[in-house]
């Protein structure tokens, strides 16, 4: 391989990494919403990243990386539906699924604002609630394991998490409205 080929390949890889990093939050949010469980979403995210790279290295530069990546992820998700029959989405009509997909894309358009709002809302939680959220999500733990870690019953932690999520959702809505009003 010549030096210029190597350089060009390196640039190609670097461009792909940059594109993927710029859009990965959006891709992941889409996958999780359409798959609905964290563990499968991670697997599909990894699988999608691999497929994207395979296609990317063979293709001309991609103009709209985000839309292209979502389309690839969507195809992988459809394949996943055919393998897993017991999914929440398996009994939904095409209309309902498309509606959820469209709502997801609309929400994803505000992802940066939502991210900022969420960060501020999480910081407003009391320390114990923040620790629950931190352990569950940042450590990638199930509710059951989170309950064990904090010495709580699983049932009571489900209740607590419902309260925390409800508060966070309400807080985010409030922030988005005030941000939109301000602008």
């Amino acid at each position, binding site marked *: 391989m010549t030096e210029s080929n190597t350089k060009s390949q390196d640039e190609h890889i670097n461009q*792909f990494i940059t594109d993927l990093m710029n859009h990965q939050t959006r891709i992941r949010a889409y996958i999780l919403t359409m798959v609905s*469980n964290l563990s499968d979403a991670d697997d599909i995210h990894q699988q999608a990243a691999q497929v994207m790279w395979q296609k990317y290295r063979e293709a001309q530069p991609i103009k709209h990386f985000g839309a292209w990546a979502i389309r690839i992820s969507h195809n992988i998700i459809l394949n996943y539906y055919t393998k897993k029959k017991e999914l929440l989405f398996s009994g939904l009509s095409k209309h*309902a699924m498309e509606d959820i997909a469209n709502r997801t894309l609309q929400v994803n358009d505000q992802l940066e604002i939502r991210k900022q709002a969420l960060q501020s809302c*999480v910081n407003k939680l009391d320390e114990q609630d923040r620790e629950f959220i931190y352990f*569950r999500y940042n450590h990638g733990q199930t509710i059951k394991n989170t309950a064990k870690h904090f010495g*709580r019953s699983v049932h009571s932690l489900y209740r607590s998490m419902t309260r925390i999520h409800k508060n966070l959702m309400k807080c985010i809505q409030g922030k988005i409205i005030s941000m939109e009003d301000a602008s």
Partner: protein
Amino acid sequence: MNEKQRDVFIEQLQFVLDNQLDVQDIPKLQQQLENDPDARDIYVEFMTMSSLLSDPDQFQNVHDNQQTGNLLREIVEADQILSHLNQAQINKLQSEKIEKQAKEKLNEFLGNQKTEPIDNNSSVNSDRLESNIRLKLPMIKVLAASIILGICLWLFLQPQFPSQIALLRKTVNAQWETSPGKRLYNQPYQLNSGLAEIEFNDGAKIILEGPAEITLESANGAYLKKGKLVAYVPDAARGFTVNTPFANFVDYGTEFGLVVDDASSEMSVFEGEVKVELQDKSSTQIVPAGESKHVVAGDHQIHDVISQTDYIRHLSEEVVVKPMEANFCKEPHWRLSFNDMQKMKAEHKVKAVGDFNFDPQGPALKHLPDNQAMMFKGDNHLNVNLQEQEIDNEEFTLSMWIKCNSKINQCIYMHHIDNFEADQVLYIERDKNNHTYLKYLFCMENKQEGHRTKHKIFRAKDYVPGQWMHVVIVFTKEKAVFYLNGQYIDQALIPAGYQIKEHPASYLTFGYAMNMTNIQSLELKSGKQFPGFNGSIDEFSIYQCELKGDQIQQLYSQSLW
């Protein structure tokens, strides 16, 4: 949707997120999503928020230093793992090539110049690395698994600890080098004689005839180093592959026989078709039913052959596979040593909490490649969480070396919670007469009677702080037996009605006892806690069988120099 319905809906989404929603609750939730646009809105809001919360950089402001530090360690450890990969797992030449590419990509990603690549022996420029990681933080996990490390680093990072991929269905006079038990894992097995029927998770079945050496590689494939097998592959398992030292055999939904010795592989197709591919990929053939092929070491051709080999295609005598017997229980199923722990940390199966170091003065065990022990200083602990592990049988043995440095009254070593119904705790306690005991306590919650009960405590008197001890606890269906330094100490009946539900390594903590659990409420006054552990632990192992007294004595005496 009213407030209460909204609460119930959000609570159910929590279950969905963990894939824990009861099957009978799914239709109701589906109906809500189908018919109620509000429900769809809440669903999308909830999932989007959960995705953002599980985004690695969400908590960067809150736990910035910790997060960056952890990731820095993960990256460095990933590189270390890369350099300690088990080359036998995959083809050596291929692995070296990919490893080289992977290291180059890792170096590029971390912003190192080619003149100063990451080297296991060199110190890392932590400032530059940290700033690069900070920028590139969100994608590290995904990219490390797929792209950065030469697209397929994940091939190398196959679980260090076996995952179950097949079941042993029947055996006839089977003599194993090490009895495998009913569940089979992605690891090598040696059948010295007899027959064994193995069903892979994807549906293929093989009848293995001893003597044979086989490595189960995946839910749909194996590596046969030596021996004979017949494979029956239903449509669902098309693509089932048997690799051998000289050729690979890919099944297209059929039945075939294969025999491998030191110099050749011979394969006969009984039904359907099989693809034969030489190891160097120089030749490939599709072999139809009724034909046999022969591949010889060093000969780059696939030869026709009239097979003289007799294959056993059905097992007439059915023998129910029993859990492994003590005589065959030679190796631990699961071990936590210094070397293993580095890999487990990278796989998130072990999490160190607090400042964590290793004691270079571990027990001098002659069979170990390292003598470093996990060191606890009272303010750190270690969580082990192998979520995928299930109980294989009802017998297992815990073995460990422990040393307590402190002279305080209580010192916790290990805390295992079984499905929140029972606690098992190993600790040291000093009584008012100044006798020091090593104690093992078993507590359980009696749900019917609504109270907690404390069961038998094993006690070893006059333990001397600062000395290494070998502790073994053997669980069977009926009892638990306690050994110290190879000697039997005590035993207790397992409380009637209690059945161990989770694997001992499914949720295990070293150096710390959880708050508000059975052990806390029974053993300590309200509001107090066990003090943190000050000492060391090494070679924590779980044998999935009942070790007998003479084996434990042998394990202890053979371990020492």
